[in-house]
């Protein structure tokens, strides 16, 4: 795992020499945050893995016994494989939609917005400032059966006489796309913005068409942002259950819904096993993806 996670050390300027730049003060600065991460991330993750192997017949009140019950994984997979697959399909679709929507926006902000650049950036971040749940609820309104959008789509026959938007997979993916789009736009913008305009002019000068210039210059240079953006949208989407709960129906339940419900019901071993499976699947996907995209720099 260490391979793809190495940040862009070679391109980074060398650390400043002089003064106490040795290992010790580095560790001291790292210590408080590191302890926090170790105590509340590493240990809990280990605990989660351990819990996933507990005897499922225990309960919060009676206590659990560590029995190395690998069967939990088989059980949870058997029961929740559709939700797991659905989560990845929805998250993948939403990520793709985020790329399609996010790229023009990030490109426009970086290169075309001129003096409106900052304003547009603020507009991208602005939705953050209204609560996530409140915004998702407003999609309930926008996609509602009695509202303008559905009426319009029915009128132009995109939707049937009694077609819906709300409580469909479309609504869930729309919500996911909407919620995580800023996480795509911001890293993309950050890496596009670094592209020196002179590169593109140089490319134009060397007789490449705008499209060729885009493909050979802009896209490779935007790659780190694209990778970061897809990770930052895909990962939270895959684990999300809010959009499915608020905008979907029982047939759009994602793995997050199940994990949440299992925890709420006190079935810790099964819930943990499902969590570990989700995490492992994501780590595997991310690993393959980062390797294939050939980017060493993450986020």
């Amino acid at each position, binding site marked *: *795992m260490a391979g793809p*996670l*190495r940040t862009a050390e070679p391109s*980074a300027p*060398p*650390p*400043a020499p002089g003064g106490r*730049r040795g*290992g010790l003060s580095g560790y001291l*600065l*790292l210590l*408080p*945050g*590191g302890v*926090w991460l170790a105590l*509340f*991330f590493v240990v809990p*993750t280990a*605990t*989660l893995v351990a*819990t996933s192997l507990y005897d499922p017949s225990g309960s919060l009140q009676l206590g659990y016994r560590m029995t190395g019950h690998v069967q939990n994984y088989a059980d949870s997979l058997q029961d929740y494989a559709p939700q797991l697959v659905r989560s990845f399909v929805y998250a993948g679709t939403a990520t793709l939609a985020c790329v399609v*929507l996010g790229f023009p*926006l*990030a490109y*426009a902000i970086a*290169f075309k917005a001129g003096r409106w650049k900052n304003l*547009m950036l603020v*507009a991208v971040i602005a*939705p953050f400032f*209204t*609560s*996530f*749940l*409140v*915004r998702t*609820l*407003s999609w309930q*309104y*926008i996609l*509602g059966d009695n509202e303008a959008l559905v009426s319009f789509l029915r009128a132009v026959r995109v939707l049937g006489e009694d077609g819906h938007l709300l409580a469909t997979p479309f609504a869930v993916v729309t919500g996911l796309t*909407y919620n995580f*789009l800023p996480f795509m736009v911001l890293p993309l913008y*950050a890496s596009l913005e670094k592209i020196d*305009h002179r590169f593109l002019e140089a490319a*134009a000068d060397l007789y490449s*068409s*705008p499209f060729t210039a885009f493909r050979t210059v802009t896209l490779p240079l935007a790659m780190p942002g694209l990778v970061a953006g897809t990770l930052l949208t895909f*990962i939270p989407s*895959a*684990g*999300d259950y*809010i959009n499915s709960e608020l905008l979907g129906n029982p047939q759009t339940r994602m793995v997050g819904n199940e994990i*949440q419900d299992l925890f709420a019901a006190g079935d*810790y071993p099964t819930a*943990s096993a499902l*969590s570990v499976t*989700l995490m492992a699947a*994501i780590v595997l996907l*991310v690993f393959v993806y980062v390797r294939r995209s050939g980017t060493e720099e993450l*986020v």
Partner: protein
Amino acid sequence: MSTATATARRTGRGSGRGAGRGPGRWLADHLVLVLGLLVLVYMTVPVLVVMLMSFNDPASRNSYSFDGFTLANWTDVCGPYQLCESLVTSLQIGLLATLGATLLGTLMAFAMVRHRFRGRSAANLLIFLPMATPEVVMGSSLLALFVNVGVAGFLGFWTILVAHVLFCLSFVVVTVKARLAGLDPRLEQAAMDLYANEWQTFWRISFPLVFPGILGAALLSFSLSFDDFIITNLNAGQEVTFPMFVWGAAQRGIPPQINVVGTIMFLVAMSVVLVGELGSRRRAGR
């Protein structure tokens, strides 16, 4: 100046001068901008809906439609049971978590960028992994820990805070690190060359130059913390944060006041951003 025009000017030798004008051409040049603005509209519409709904006078508890205009929601924000209490809880947690995460994360970012030490790839991994963990997994593993060490009965404000500092931390490190990596180390070296010791170099050069990154990280932390539902919900015990209030309300019928809160939040944040922007314009103009 746009690249497209630059390209056109270089390669468009054959076409007549007047041919470049006209609406078709304008659209081609500005296609990306138009698309971008459309996407922005998509991103903004829900916020506008929130604002609109803050004036809604719903006909019934479960009504999703705009039934009538009223100012009552604005004059009676705290009307719904627990709304304002949950808001206060969220603000407290948000501020404390921001403070903690920004402090710890900034220190880590400086260590990662400006210091050489063994095990930095392990440190990188440790910082990256929380971001690669879905919220529901992170929340449930924290819960698993709390249950296992026997504090399941004490879930509440402090466990929420611990969790929020945790998931904000990595974002702070990444944000500050990016800013710090863009900072030419030769600036710090030049300061040392000009008789500034490490302390002076930090406060006079590094800190002011990295400050926008730290500020950005703090704002990001606050909005992440204030918005979080999934992790909070798992570790909150009896405590109710604002997102949890909204969630609960969504099951029972949504009081329009939450739209008022959303609108206020939005306006406050926007004015902070605008004031900051004006301030930096003014400073740059001097």
